[in-house]
Structures are given as C-alpha cells and as structure tokens.
C-alpha cells in the first residue's frame, strides 16, 4: 500500500473495564492531534458488530489505510479486528492494537495518570502503524490423518469420532492394552454402571475400525513438521509374541515359571502376574506380552531347560528373536491424551501407606472390588508381601472381610505440602461410590466412615448420589485425618471431628486413601516431543482456559482428558469429542493458514554464526550455503511453515540480520521511543 498513511484510531470503553479508569474522550481528542490520524473515535465495545462497523465504514468513507484499536490485549481480539480490516478491504496486517486494558486501566487506580499512560500507548501504536507493511497469509495443505497419543477413554473416544468422520487415525498406546485407568474401575459414579460394560465395546471398536491403526506397547519417538504436515516416528516395542499367531489362549501364562510372582501393574500391585501376561481378561488386543525385565530367558538367558511358555504355545507365537519395530508416517493433526498418575501416597508418610498392609489407595481398593480383580471382587483384609502356599490339597484359610472400612479424602489434593494445590475433582464422588460398594459387597453391618473436609458434589446427579450414600448408613465425619497408627490388630485414625471440635482416635480394620490425580511422571517426554507448556499445577496448558480448552499454543496439537487437568469420565469424554472436532476442522478444510509475522533473514549481512539455529524453539531455522560474490558462505534460512513468529531469533541476532515481519527494528524502535523510553 503506497501513499500517505491515513490512520483511524478507535478507543474502546470495554464497558467500565477501561472507561472506569481511563478518560477515553480525552484519549480520542489527543489521538486526533497526532500526525496522519484521519479519524479517532470511541465506542463502548469495539469488538461488537456496531463497533467493527465503525471501522469498516471509515475505511470505505475516509480511505483509511491503517487502523489502531486501543482496547485489550491482542491475545483475544487481534484476530477479530484483522477480520474487520479484511472485510473492509484492507490487508489485515495494517492493524495495530494498543493495550490500554491489561497494561493500563486494570493495573492503575489513578484516573489522571492512567489517562496519560493510555495516550502514550496510543501514540506509540500510531507511530508503529505508520510503518506497518502488508503481509501475505500463506496456506499449507493438511494431511487428512491424526495421531492420538494415549488410548484411555479420552484417546479412544477421540479416535472413534475422527475415524467415524472418515479420517485416518494412528492411536499409539504405551502399555500393552488400550483402556487406561477407566478399565481398572469397577462401577462408575453416580449411575453405578459397570465401567467395563461401557468401555470394552469401545476398546474393541478401536481395534477393529478400518480407519484406526492401533499401536499398543508403542511409543512416539520423534515428531517433526508443523500443522498439516507432522512427521511421526513410533517405536513398536517387541512383545516377543507374534501378534498374528497369538490366539490369546493363555496357556503360556499358566506355564510361565514367574507366574504369580510379579506385581501386576493393572491390579496396582495387589494382584500378581507372570513374565508373559495379559494385563486383564478383556485387554485389547487380546495378545500376550513378555516383560523382558522379568522374563528369565530374556533377562538371564536361561529358563530351566527351555522356556515353558514356548513349549505351551500351540500356535508357535512365541519368538524371542523379535525386535522392536520403528514405523514412520505423516499426520495433519495430533491429539495428546496421555492421562495421569494417581498421587503417590508414600509422600504422606503420616498415613502409613506402605507400612500397614491394610492402608490402601483407592485404586487398589477399586481393583479389589472389581469382579475381574485379584480377589474376584471380594473385599478382604490384605496380607501383603506374604507368599501364597501353592501346596495341593491344602485349603488356604479364607481371608477375613473387614468389619469397618474408613476412607480419607483429599490425599494429595488441595495440599500445598506436596505441591498439589488443586482439587482433583473425582475423589469425593469415587469415595461415595466405593463406600456404597462396601455396603453392597461386605454387607450393611460393615461400618463405613468417610473423613472429608468439603464434599464437592458438583456434577449431574452427584448431590443426589451423595444423599443416597449417606442414607445407606455411610458415616461422614468432617475433619481431615492427620495420622494413622496401629493398636493391636486395629488401625487408629487420628482426626478431629471439626463440627464438634472433638479429637478422635477412630478404630478401623481398613483405611482407603482417596488419592488425587497427578500429572504423569513421564510428562516430560511428551513436552520435549511437542514443546507443550504446563500450567502451574504441571498439567498441560490449554491455549485459553475458557474459550480454547482443547487447543494448545501450537497449531494442530490438541489436548483431551486428564493430561490437561483432573476431570471425571463424562468430562474427559466431552473434551475428547471437543479435541476430535477441533482436529477435524483443518483436516476437513484440507488447508490451513500459517503465521504471516514470520522471521526473515537478510542473507547479504548474515554472518552464519548459527546462534539463531540454536535458539529457535521450533527448529525452524537452518544454515544453508549460498554464493556471496563468488565465495561460498553459510547463512541462516527460515522455514516459514515452521516459524511461529516468537521473535527469539530476531532479538538475539548479533548483526541484526534477522527481522520479524511486523516487528522489524524500523517499526519497533520508533514505537519504543514514542513511549518515552530513551
């Protein structure tokens, strides 16, 4: 756009957000005096339709070629006003935002000083607007396929939705089976429907769907590229079992010399497995896996005369020579659904978890009440670490059922001392559910007590369920216990009934710790692969807490489930459907706009030091060799599809050879000067 700049300045009241502190009339009058400003106006909400119409009308009637909107942070409404310019026939990059809300009215109390500051900020924006250049918005093609990392309920749901819409899905799961934590649960609150009954059909569907390529016991190793064109490398770990031959009959597991000697992760360690195993009967795929750390043959090179599993396998599926397989493919979008870890109860030593056999985590207890769990669904007193006698004919003494079970809520949640300040959102209700199951399975005369500090029954049907459970005779005591010790064969829970200010020594047979949800301990792997950000609670950070809850700061990468923050099954499913829908937008349109405010290298002055290459968090810069007046020299070159316009390179470049479009030195320096910075 040539010719003299004709600038329009629009000062927003933002209701009273800005106008309550800043005298907007005065700012407008001031703006009118600035060079090249053709018109200056104010309006209650510039982002509203009539507000935007002011701009388009002025472009049409007054021939504006630059627009300054003085309102909020560009984070939310820069895209809004760029569209306004576009619809008015201007290049959208002729917009400059002056932030007089977050950086002025919200942080200052003195109206006079705030108004003066607003004037400075507006003037600086005008100075920069005068120097803005038109930028081209480029588009790239989008590969119509999606990588989903994690096959818990969130990953499964997202995979099914995207696959049903006709796009290809690569579903990668670290463990040998899909299902995640939901597969470990018995009943689900507040409806008490059986978790397996509602989950297993979906597990089978992901395995059979023609559009889903399921990779279990696999890990994403490398991710390169950008939205629409991600290059993925996945390692499929060797199971030492031929997936095509294994029938899932289980003969191998029965014969394994290590059978019953390795704590089964799926049963939270209270059940045992062998070195060759299926995590649980409904596992998908229903194929056995050899855990090479514990397999005698693979770890020690010798398993009796010969490995018994191999002898037992009629299908000839066991092959100790099988190697990991690395596969590479391209996807257009990525959904992260890596889930959570439960809080490590050992970090609260006052509760004696790991010391007393019958202090359990809620997930251990969940496995115990589960019909497919290690006790066949019976709630019994545990004797941990005691080897079971395997003598034939000798009837083992039937384990005793507890006569009282006590739950402690908020273990590892709302607790600064362990660094988890957040509420885990599911514990109140799963505790109520487990308490109900105790009454159901052990009998109504089993005394059930729940120690709580607040009951947060906020979801649909939650309060009603809480009412029901109390009426079933579950005793709620308001007070968070402080410690557990032992007296004879009873556990003593020390607490205060805070409603009556009575200190208690509550006697019980079994204590269940309602542990919270934590970011996965291996979160770092995904962060390094995808450059994700974390919120202060260390869960993955969404792009906007309200309006972009499934997006990340990186285009084409979305979040689903608890990896973004604690949530229950309905919320995880809802977010998964949201992430699926968000991922399908670029895939359906087939192309996507990429950042226009990218960096550009002046190859005539670049010294090829490579400093920017090191700095770029998106690996968007490389050194290339060019011919400079007959001499081969190295210079930096920016891959504009990868560049996110963060500006790190431009700020660091020693020779000023990298400039970021819209933030060039010639644009920024006068702006800074106008702010009064010498």
């Amino acid at each position, binding site marked *: 756009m040539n010719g003299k700049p004709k600038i329009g300045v629009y000062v927003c009241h933002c209701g009273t957000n800005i106008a309550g502190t800043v005298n907007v009339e005065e700012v407008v009058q001031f703006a009118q005096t600035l060079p090249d400003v053709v018109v200056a106006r104010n309006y209650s909400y510039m982002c509203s339709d009539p507000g935007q119409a002011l701009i388009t009308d002025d472009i049409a009637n007054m021939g504006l070629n630059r627009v300054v909107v003085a309102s909020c942070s560009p984070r939310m409404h820069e895209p809004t006003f760029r569209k306004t310019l576009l619809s008015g026939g201007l290049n959208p990059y002729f917009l400059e935002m002056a932030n007089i809300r977050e950086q002025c009215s919200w942080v200052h109390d003195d109206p006079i000083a705030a108004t003066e500051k607003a004037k400075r900020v507006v003037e600086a924006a005008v100075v920069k607007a005068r120097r803005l250049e038109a930028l081209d918005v480029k588009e790239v093609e989008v590969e119509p396929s999606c990588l989903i990392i994690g096959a818990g309920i969130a990953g499964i749901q997202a995979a099914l939705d995207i696959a049903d819409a006709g796009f290809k899905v690569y579903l990668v799961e670290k463990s040998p089976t899909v299902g995640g934590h939901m597969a470990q649960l018995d009943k689900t609150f507040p409806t008490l429907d059986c978790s397996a009954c509602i989950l297993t059909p979906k597990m089978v569907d992901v395995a059979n769907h023609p559009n889903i390529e399921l990779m279990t016991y696999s890990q994403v190793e490398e991710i390169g590229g950008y939205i629409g064109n991600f290059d993925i490398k996945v390692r499929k770990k060797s199971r030492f079992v031929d997936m095509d031959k294994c029938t899932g009959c289980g003969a191998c597991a029965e014969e394994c010399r290590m059978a019953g000697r390795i704590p089964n992760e799926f049963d939270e360690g209270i059940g045992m497995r062998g070195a060759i195993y299926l995590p649980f009967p409904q596992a998908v795929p229903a194929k056995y896996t050899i855990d090479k750390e514990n397999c005698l043959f693979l770890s020690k090179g010798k398993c009796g005369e010969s490995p018994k599993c191999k002898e037992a396998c009629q299908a000839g599926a066991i092959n100790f020579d099988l190697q990991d397989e690395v596969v590479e493919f391209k996807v257009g979008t990525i959904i992260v659904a890596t889930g959570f870890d439960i809080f490590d109860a050992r970090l609260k030593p*006052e509760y*004696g978890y790991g010391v007393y056999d019958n202090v359990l985590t809620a997930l251990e207890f969940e496995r115990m009440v589960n019909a497919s769990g290690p006790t066949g669904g019976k709630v019994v007193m545990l004797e941990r670490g005691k080897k079971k006698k395997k003598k034939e004919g000798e009837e083992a003494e039937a384990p005793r059922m507890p006569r009282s079970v006590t739950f402690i809520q908020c273990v590892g949640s709302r*607790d600064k*001392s362990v660094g988890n300040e957040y509420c885990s959102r599911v514990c109140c209700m799963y505790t109520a559910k487990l308490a109900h199951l105790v009454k159901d399975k052990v009998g109504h005369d089993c005394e059930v007590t729940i120690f709580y500090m607040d009951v947060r029954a906020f979801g649909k049907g939650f309060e009603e369920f809480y009412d029901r459970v109390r009426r079933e005779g579950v005793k709620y005591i308001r*007070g968070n216990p402080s410690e557990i*010790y032992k007296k004879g064969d009873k556990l003593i829970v*020390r607490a*205060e009934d805070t409603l009556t200010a009575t200190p208690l020594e509550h006697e019980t047979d079994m204590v269940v710790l309602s542990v919270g949800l934590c970011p996965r301990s291996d979160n770092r792997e995904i962060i390094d692969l995808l450059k994700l950000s974390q919120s202060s609670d260390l869960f993955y950070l969404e792009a906007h807490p309200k309006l972009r809850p499934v997006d990340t700061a990186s285009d084409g990468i979305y979040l689903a489930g608890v990896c973004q923050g604690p949530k229950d099954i309905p919320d995880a499913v809802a977010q998964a459907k949201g992430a699926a829908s968000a991922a399908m937008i670029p895939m359906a349109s087939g192309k996507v706009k990429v950042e226009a405010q990218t960096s550009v290298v002046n190859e005539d002055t670049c010294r090829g030091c490579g400093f920017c290459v090191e700095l770029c968090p998106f690996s968007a810069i490389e050194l290339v060799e060019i011919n400079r007046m007959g001499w081969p020299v190295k210079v930096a070159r920016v891959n504009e599809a990868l560049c996110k316009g963060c500006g790190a390179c431009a700020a660091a470049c020693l020779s000023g050879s990298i400039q970021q479009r819209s933030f060039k030195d010639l644009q920024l320096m006068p702006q800074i000067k106008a702010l009064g910075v010498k």
Partner: protein
Amino acid sequence: MCAEEIGFVEKYDLLGCIQCGRCTGGCPVALRTDLRVRCFMYDTQNEERLEELSERPEIWDCTTCYTCAARCPKGLEPLEVLIGLRSLQIEEGRVQPTVRDALESIFKDGNPWGSPRAKRLDWTAGLEVEALEPEAEEATDVLLFVCCTDAYDPRVMKVAQALVKVLNAAGVDFGIIGEEESCCGSEVRRLGEEGLFEMCDEENVELLNSFNVNRIVTVSPHCYNTLKKEYHGLKHPVLHYTELVAELLEEGKLQLSKEMAKVITYHDPCFLGKQNDIYDEPRYIITRIPGVEFREFDRCRERSLCCEGGGGKMWVESESKAERLAEIRVEDAKELGAEIIAVACPFCLLTLEDATKVKGVEEEMRVADILELLAEAL
C-alpha cells in the same frame, strides 16, 4: 503490643486456613488436654477476642512439636498462633512463676535453670576439653554448642560428657565456648518472650561469629533448630551431633568395639525429626553399635509421638490429669520388648526417664542418649 500491631490475620495468614482439622487431628496433646489448635486458627481471626483467648490456660499445653504445621495442607503454622497468644500474656506479665523465673535466669545468667554463669563449666571437670579463643588465627573444625540443660542438669550433663569422650576418641579438632556460652533462646521464643529471644539471637550470633571454626555442632535438637533456622546472620554451618557422629562412623574415624547385647528402640525428638527431617542418622549410629538389636516404635519417624518436653513445658505443668505421652511411649517400648529407649535430646531424656519411674519400670527399662551408649561402646 507488637503482635497486635501487625495483626494476627496477616501475621499467621489465618485466612488461608480451610479448617480441615489436620492440626488438631495430629496434635499430640489434643487427646489429653483441652487444646484445639484449629479453633484458635478460627477464633483469632476476630482481633477483639485476642485478649480473652490469650487467657485460656490450654495455650500453655502446646509443646511446639510442629506436628500441626507439618500436617497443614496450606503451609500454615498453627502453633505460632499459640505462641503469639502467649506473647500477649508475657507482655502483660501474667505468667506462671516458674516461667518467670526461667526467663529471668536466662536474662541474668544465660540459662533457664537458675544457676550462676560461673558454674557453666562444672560439667567439664576431669575432661579433655578446651574453651576456644575468639578470633583465633587457626581454624578449629568444630565448635561445640552445649545446651544449658546439658551444662547444668546433673543427669543430662552425662550426655555432654559422653560427647566429649566420643569426639576425643575420634580425634576431632573441637572446642567449646566456655563460661560466655548462653542459652540459645529456643524455649524463650516458644514461651512467647519475643524481646528476650531477639536478644539471644543478636548476642549469640555475635559471639558465635567471633570464633574461627568450620562448623557448629549442637548437643540439643532445640539449639540446633534455633541456630539453624531462627537466628539471623550466623556465618557457620550448624550440625546436630548425630550428623557429625554418623559422618565419623562412616569415615571410619570412630571405632566401636564393645558389644552391647540389648534390644534398643529409638524415640525421634520432634525438633530433630519432624522439624528437621533428621531420621536416618540416629538409626545409623545405633545400629552400628555391635550386638544391638534395633526395634522401631510403631509410631516412628514422621509419625513419632511427642514426649511433651518442648515448647517451654519444662516450666509449665499441664492441668490435665490424663496419662502423659511419655508414659504412653514407655508402655509402647515395653510392649516392643525394648530394654533401652535411645534418645537424642535432653528434654526427651528427662521426660522419658521420669515416665519409666512413674510406670515403675526404671529397673528393667533404661532411657539413654545415643551418646551415652556410644561412650560405653568405645
């Protein structure tokens, strides 16, 4: 009134409290006295009630064991509120005569036991131990900070004497302060005498900084906690003797040759365990004594039960007639089959030994500081 000027609400972040009850729930004295520290976290939010609350006798039941703070999910320190209330009483001069005498004795003679400064070194009689010169050119490795109780109490004195024997046996380059040594002020602060504590802080830091030493080693965990965490501007690193002795054993500088065929349990002092996370060193030392069979209390480490010796309780008798915690501890040790309860704190030594007498088991059950056992095993 200093505490009131700042305001309880801000000073103790009372609005951060969610009234969960973990403080009272874990409070060792809540079961035997009327103390409900959670209620104080709520009631003191009303500044108009502070005077009335400070007159409640149960504020003197707190042993400052720190369990309430260790368990607080919001990082608050409920015990400090009780200390704040005690300060209001101290400022009004309304304290029990025993407390008044102890504080006066610290002010006058640098110790709470009413003994003259001139007698501070009586415990060293016949021992190879020298007082260090301030500003010496050559650095001494260890400056021993001897607790007032170790220096004056005829029973506890044996612990300090044992330490000197142990350090000499290990060839440690060490010395003591001498008659100039004064109370660390740990109990002063916990009794609520803020002004006197500030004096202890200033004078002791100046005195301690005047010595050319690599590190300071304390005998009592109470001195350790105060020197390490509550003093301002102390130059030297501070160790508890269990840390030093564990180091000497590990490096092979200390040899234990005599057999001690006894069942020993260990009582974690609150100021060493809960407040400073020193759990492993004392156990390491005890289990290095030849012939020892070590048994843990059920309530050990982070769940250890307070002996009620801290928080100024040496000078304040509780109104409660319920069984003392030290007596429960002795009973537990008996059930465990322990012949010796090992301790690493002068107050634990006194309270537990007293409890063995109340329980009539002083013949079969011995209470001894780890140092005494070590000296016997040399």
